[in-house]
């Protein structure tokens, strides 16, 4: 049996192919077709989504009642969930469609705060007209967040809830935002980075204070194609300068601080505070940043390249903010 040779080839996902060769002679070929996959092929060849039951509530109370039953999956814009279902990475049994819950779709300014409903779309945010030029980080979503249909469909709450390397958690973090999560019995408030929703929770509102004088925010994304790419590095910056041009306050986030985890750059912020944005300070700050982050490599970019681009984007964003504050 020493020269039994089993060839196992994966062609995409299915069908899989198995060939058994003994002493150089082909004994048998197997093709495996997944019934699950073939079931999803309809007459005109369109692959269907896995089966699920759908609920279409029209108020937040109805949503909370449904969530309290357990086993529910929330569907907001669908730009994440539907591709995940297509790839077999999510197979919900009960889906709660939030498109009818119009009470969660708003953006308001009240008593020095912006209030954003969890179902507000990215396009609502970019085009609501409430944000002046200081909210550059929000405006730049219009350039860097997917393409037009993505911005039309994707929601603020959905982007926060999906976790990982997303644009809105990073931007909302530098804006000092808090996220309100509600469930049938109570509510809680959390930061926008690394949100973990319990099965019966929904993001109802995002709140952040209006920016003060001599402040600016910026967001930038390095991607490997001109548009609609997956960000290799994304950086969000909030900067407040004093009258003398020194850094009064600063908040920085990157998509990969440790491994694949997005986060704040507290040490780099500390190194920047009270200093001036001159070449000497910045080169010292970049050394601090170099020590502070350890991004994971993957097929898009190596750790060292990500580190380099992280520094470039942070410096550029800081300078962009400073230039516009001084203007």
């Amino acid at each position, binding site marked *: 049996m020493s020269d039994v040779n089993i060839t196992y080839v994966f062609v995409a996902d299915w069908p899989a192919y198995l060939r058994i060769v003994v002493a150089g002679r082909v004994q048998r070929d197997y093709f495996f077709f997944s019934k699950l996959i073939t079931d999803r092929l*309809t007459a*005109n060849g*369109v*692959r*269907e*989504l*896995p*089966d*699920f*039951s*759908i609920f*279409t509530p029209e108020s937040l109370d109805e949503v909370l009642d449904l969530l309290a039953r357990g086993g529910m999956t929330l*569907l907001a*814009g*669908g*730009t994440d969930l*539907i*591709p995940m279902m*297509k790839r077999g990475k999510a197979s919900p049994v009960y*889906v709660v*469609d939030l*498109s*009818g819950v119009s009470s969660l779709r708003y953006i308001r300014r009240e008593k020095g705060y912006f209030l954003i409903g969890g179902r507000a779309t990215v*396009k609502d945010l970019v085009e609501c007209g409430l944000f002046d030029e200081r909210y550059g980080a929000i405006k730049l979503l219009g*350039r860097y967040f*997917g*393409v*037009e*249909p*993505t911005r*039309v*469909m994707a929601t603020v709450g959905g982007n926060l809830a999906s976790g990982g390397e997303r644009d809105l958690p990073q931007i909302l973090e530098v804006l000092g935002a808090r996220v309100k999560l509600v469930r049938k019995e109570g509510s809680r408030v959390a930061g926008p980075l690394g949100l973990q929703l319990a099965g019966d929770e929904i993001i109802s509102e995002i709140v952040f204070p209006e920016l003060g004088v001599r402040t600016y925010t910026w967001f930038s994304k390095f991607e490997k194609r*001109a*548009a*609609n790419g997956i960000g290799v590095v994304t950086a969000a910056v909030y900067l407040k300068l004093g009258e003398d041009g020194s850094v009064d306050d600063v908040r920085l986030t990157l998509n990969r601080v440790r491994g694949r985890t997005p986060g704040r750059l507290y040490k780099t912020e500390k190194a920047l505070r009270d200093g001036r944005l001159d070449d000497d300070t910045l080169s010292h700050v970049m050394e601090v940043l170099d020590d502070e982050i350890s991004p994971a490599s993957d097929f898009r970019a190596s750790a060292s390249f990500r580190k380099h681009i992280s520094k470039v984007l942070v410096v550029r964003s800081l300078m962009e903010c400073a230039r516009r504050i001084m203007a």
Partner: protein
Amino acid sequence: MPKIGLRINGVQVITEVRGRDRLIDLLRGMGFMSVKEGCSAGDCGSCNVLVNGELVNSCLMLAVQARGCEILTLEGIGTEEKPHRLQLAFVDFAASQCGYCIPGIIVTAKYLLDRNPNPTEEEIRRILTANICRCGGYTRIVEAVKKAAGAI
């Protein structure tokens, strides 16, 4: 099965849909074959339609989410007898190679012209990042949209 009402190209439709039926499944099932499935993930834009005037990937929207909405597909933009000026411009510039992506591109271009009748080339190219043409025929596509906008 949920029963939904919606308007497709100006015609009121009441139909039963399954939870898992996407808008593209409903539209193609009803014979609106201009709506093409490409990537099924919101990258290629071949399935783009207008929902209440907003540009949407119909492969990422469930049919139930379109309840009560006004849907516009390519079939509602122009016909063979009465083509839309975008379609005429695309013919003028032979801006279609294999043609699979073109219905989605015309819908995206219509969305642009509805909002911005005099777009710059930069604006045309930026909105068309919503569509992928695997033949790579972008130059003529952009020229055709410029012509339809009256810029040429």
